[in-house]
């Protein structure tokens, strides 16, 4: 049984990693062939870094992700505080509205926002670009911020906020000194989730971005539509390495904090 599950685990891993592994290997291939490895080269990486389109869209992606996730976190944190103090019925209604972008297919979210932007673009004379893109990203990010923070309120002792005020804190400073630290883990994980979703988003961006605000996933898409280009392989390899480093670092940090808690 033990052996069987190890084999099964290995097979699934093979399925998950084989395509990525092949991409990585062929990013070092001299020719454009996808099946014959004819020699080792770093040329595709050099070409990648000299590809202005890719570099601009990488910058665009980071700008949009930072702005959208910061704003979504502020908006979502404020929203969660307000929603938490609502009565049951309005709370349920607002949470149902919040769930819409999560449940709805991405393409419907993208298309519906596009309809809205087209409507306003015709009347208020603006073009699709960073503003529409950032609005769209905030819209699909805020629900995740709220959903990450709400459970923290449930775990929090409601009396400590009042206790802080009894001990002389103003409501505002009681919030910053007592409530905010309690919900901070939720705020941070909401922010990180938003940031990664923004970096990775293709579908919604595809419908809401303009010619000047292409993000990396959109550029990748147009590259895959054209002829084979091993630059994509090089790009994949770099992204894979970045993701690997980030996840390993996260894992190590988490493990350390678990160990520290164990010592206490």
């Amino acid at each position: 049984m033990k052996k069987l599950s190890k084999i099964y685990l290995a097979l699934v891993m093979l399925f998950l990693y084989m395509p990525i592994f092949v991409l990585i290997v062929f990013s070092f291939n001299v020719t454009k062939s996808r099946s014959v490895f004819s020699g080792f080269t770093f040329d595709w990486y050099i070409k990648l870094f000299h590809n202005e389109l890719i570099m601009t869209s990488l910058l665009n992606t980071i700008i949009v992700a930072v702005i959208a996730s910061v704003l979504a976190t502020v908006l979502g944190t404020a929203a969660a505080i307000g929603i938490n103090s609502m009565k049951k019925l309005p709370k349920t209604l607002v949470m149902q509205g919040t769930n819409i972008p999560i449940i709805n297919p991405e393409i419907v979210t993208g298309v519906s926002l596009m309809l809205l932007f087209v409507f306003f673009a015709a009347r208020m004379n603006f073009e699709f670009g960073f503003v529409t893109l950032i609005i769209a990203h905030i819209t699909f990010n805020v629900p995740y911020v709220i959903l990450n923070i709400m459970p923290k309120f449930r775990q929090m002792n409601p009396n400590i906020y009042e206790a802080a005020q009894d001990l002389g804190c103003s409501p505002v400073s009681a919030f910053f000194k007592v409530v905010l630290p309690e919900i901070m883990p939720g705020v941070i994980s909401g922010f990180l989730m938003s940031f990664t979703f923004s970096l990775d988003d293709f579908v919604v961006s595809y419908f809401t971005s303009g010619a000047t605000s292409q993000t990396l996933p959109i550029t990748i898409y147009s590259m895959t539509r054209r002829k084979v280009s091993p630059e994509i392989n090089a790009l994949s390899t770099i992204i894979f390495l970045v993701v690997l480093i980030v996840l390993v670092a996260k894992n190590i940090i988490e493990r350390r904090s678990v160990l520290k808690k164990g010592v206490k």
Partner: protein
Amino acid sequence: MKKLISAPYLLWMAVFIIIPLIMVAYFAFTTTDGAFTLDNLAAVSQYSNIFIRSIWLAAIATVICLIISYPLALILARIDKSYQSTVLMIVMLPMWMNFLLRTYAWMTLLGNNGLINAFFGLFGLGPFKMLNTQGAVVLGMVYNYLPFMILPLYNVLAKLDKSVIEAAQDLGCNNTKTLIKVIVPLSMPGIMSGITMVFVPAISTFIISRMLGGGSNLLIGDLIEMQFLGNSYNPNLGAAISLVLMVIILLIMTILNQFDEDDDRVLM
């Protein structure tokens, strides 16, 4: 006072979530001049073969994901706690790559000049036509959405009370019976949210079908995209298709909910 602080979000939700959806419904029921019509919805019926294909392929992909993921989640949940999170991270790592790159990887693997056909060529077989088939689309769906099935299943199975399983065994259940009578029913919320998280993106995808299915295996997503950004610009028809897609998903979710007594969805 505290309620006021959520006002900006409520406004945001109204303008960027609720109103856009109302606009989808409005466009679906109007002509380009804004007059009421049912023609758009009627026109959707001529694409019924695409709808059936999308539901069918998404359903197959969901079932395959479930079949692959359930044993895997069971194995993951039983791994020694000290390196459980590491193994889970390794399983989830490919998901962090952009899905376009993951799909592109399969494009290069499945092609006529791809590595898999080159492998068959060694034995004098092929080349087999694998790219631009329905099978390739299903494979792309399974590959991209597998983690969405693994994660909720793992979450449920890892929290499963071990004493319940022991009790079942004490009362005379063998391993198979314990699995069917105890473990599977208890993991139902995870199965349901896994199905939802795979089926919804699979039925509405438009990239996987285009990259792996060629031009002949269009799905609902491709149809919608073509009405908004493609050659046949027709937002009214596109809105009608989107509306029908939402209704289909809602219906399927309602049917699925009948099997799931608890409402405790295990989201990521």
